[in-house]
């Protein structure tokens, strides 16, 4: 392992993550955990996603619908995506005696309570927005923001980096590699801002403040649908993030995001940028 990765674990410990990066990372991790699970609680109150400004009751503009229906003697849970209907009994729509879209294990609180889900959701929304703002300002000043933006050289190295990742050959350098930059920049500059904007666009009071945003996003129900889709993208990021940590050496990765100290690979003679 050590040799295959070009001297993994043989380089010096470097101070890679500042206190601000580490602290905000964990605040975001906790916030996103609660935001997602309270979000599913809120979704369960009306488990359909539509396009446009309103929800079609007398016409169909739904993209996704999770529900329950009587089939013979049994209650079947179903998930409809566009024209396709899937039997999702046991997972979505119906779980045992419970008739709800997402199961209790995926909602906060575990009982059905839209009111409680909402107050916890908005609490962590404020925490997320506040810490993002502090982080963005401080990181712009310190130059950390630039470390997340891929350079031309990074992009030129993209094919090789992709190939290395595919073969689980990781380089542990001082900076982020191009795939890391793309993933982190995608979350911090695209996904989270989109979550905030689509979330705000579901607020009738914010619609009065910024009606243009509602138009850009294609209406309130489209904003709600996008909010859900970007949530799925963030879940996808989380899964890949966890896999990469395990594959790249979990103790070293965890140490760097807890203490800041990260062991880099030994310098290679050819000066390969890690």
């Amino acid at each position, binding site marked *: 392992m050590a040799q295959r990765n070009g001297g993994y674990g043989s380089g010096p410990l470097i101070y890679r993550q500042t206190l601000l990066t580490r602290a905000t990372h964990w605040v975001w991790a906790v916030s996103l955990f609660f935001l997602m699970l309270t979000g599913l609680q809120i979704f369960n109150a009306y488990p359909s996603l539509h396009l446009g400004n309103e929800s*079609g009751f007398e016409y169909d503009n739904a993209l996704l619908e999770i529900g329950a229906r009587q089939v013979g003697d049994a209650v079947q849970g179903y998930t409809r995506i566009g024209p396709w209907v899937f039997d999702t009994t046991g997972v979505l729509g119906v779980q045992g005696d419970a008739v709800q879209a997402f199961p209790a294990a995926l909602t906060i609180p575990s009982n059905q309570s839209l009111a*409680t889900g909402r107050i*916890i959701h908005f609490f962590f929304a404020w925490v997320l927005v506040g810490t993002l703002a502090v982080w963005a300002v401080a990181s712009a000043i310190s130059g950390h923001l630039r470390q997340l933006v891929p350079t031309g050289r990074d992009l030129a190295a993209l094919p090789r980096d992709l190939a290395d990742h595919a073969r689980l050959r990781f380089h542990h350098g001082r900076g982020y590699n191009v795939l890391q930059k793309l993933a982190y920049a995608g979350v911090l500059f695209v996904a989270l801002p989109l979550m905030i904007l689509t979330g705000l666009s579901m607020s009738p009071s914010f619609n009065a403040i910024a009606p243009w945003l509602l138009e850009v996003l294609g209406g309130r129900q489209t904003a709600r649908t996008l909010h859900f889709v970007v949530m799925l993208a963030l879940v996808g990021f989380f899964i890949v993030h966890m896999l990469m940590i395990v594959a790249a050496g979990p103790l070293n990765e965890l140490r760097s995001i807890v203490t800041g100290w990260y062991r880099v690979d030994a310098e290679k003679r050819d000066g390969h940028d890690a």
Partner: protein
Amino acid sequence: MTLDRRRFLRAGLLGATAVLSGCKVLDGANVQGSVTRGVFEAVSPLTYRAQRLLGGGHSLAPEYTDADIRQGQRPNGSTDPDGAEYRALAAAGFEDYVLRVTGMVEQPLVLTYAEVQAMPARTQITRHDCVEGWSCIAKWTGVPLGLVLDRARPFPEARFAVFHCYDAIERGLSGEVRYYESIDLIDAHHPQTILAYGMNGAALPIANGAPLRLRVERQLGYKMAKYVHTIELVDSFAGLGFGRGSYWADRGYEWYAGI
């Protein structure tokens, strides 16, 4: 190094506990009056102030066109109040209905349905957003609430307009619990805040709140009380329900529903 490792383990353990106990982890927040819930609820005034700061008193909710009305207005909550007084009014086509304006006003009012409808009217095509997540567009016609309040001349100390309604969603041990709502005087004087008696070009149906319902276009549906019979001007919520200013606020929802 050992210290580092211990810290990882502790962090990992904490994380695992949070995930394993899954979603029961914040179930304590269900309890009204609990410290946990209090912490989460503390951001609601922050949302209220931020939105008032950005939107001021008069930012307008988006209005739509006739072409955007593609379906009837979905009724929610009470759809057919069964109190004797309301049934009698409905049977007579609301001819005997009166709207009362009471509380902290110089001039308490008793307006007949005809008098309400004779006042200057506003018609607006707006989107109704339910707290559950759905939206529906409809055309509303009614008298701006501000005009009614101007006639009643609220005292300077008055801070909220409370709407008392005919409908009861639940029956408790001490009798039925009537629906009520309240808004601040900024929303009360907002140009799109109307007492509606017409919907989609016809008389307001019973399912949607006849004879008179509130429209507060910058807030969620539950703020828009249906079956209103009395508007009371107050300076605090003490003595109303559980003291949180609305039927649903008493049941854990935010009093301010701008989001």
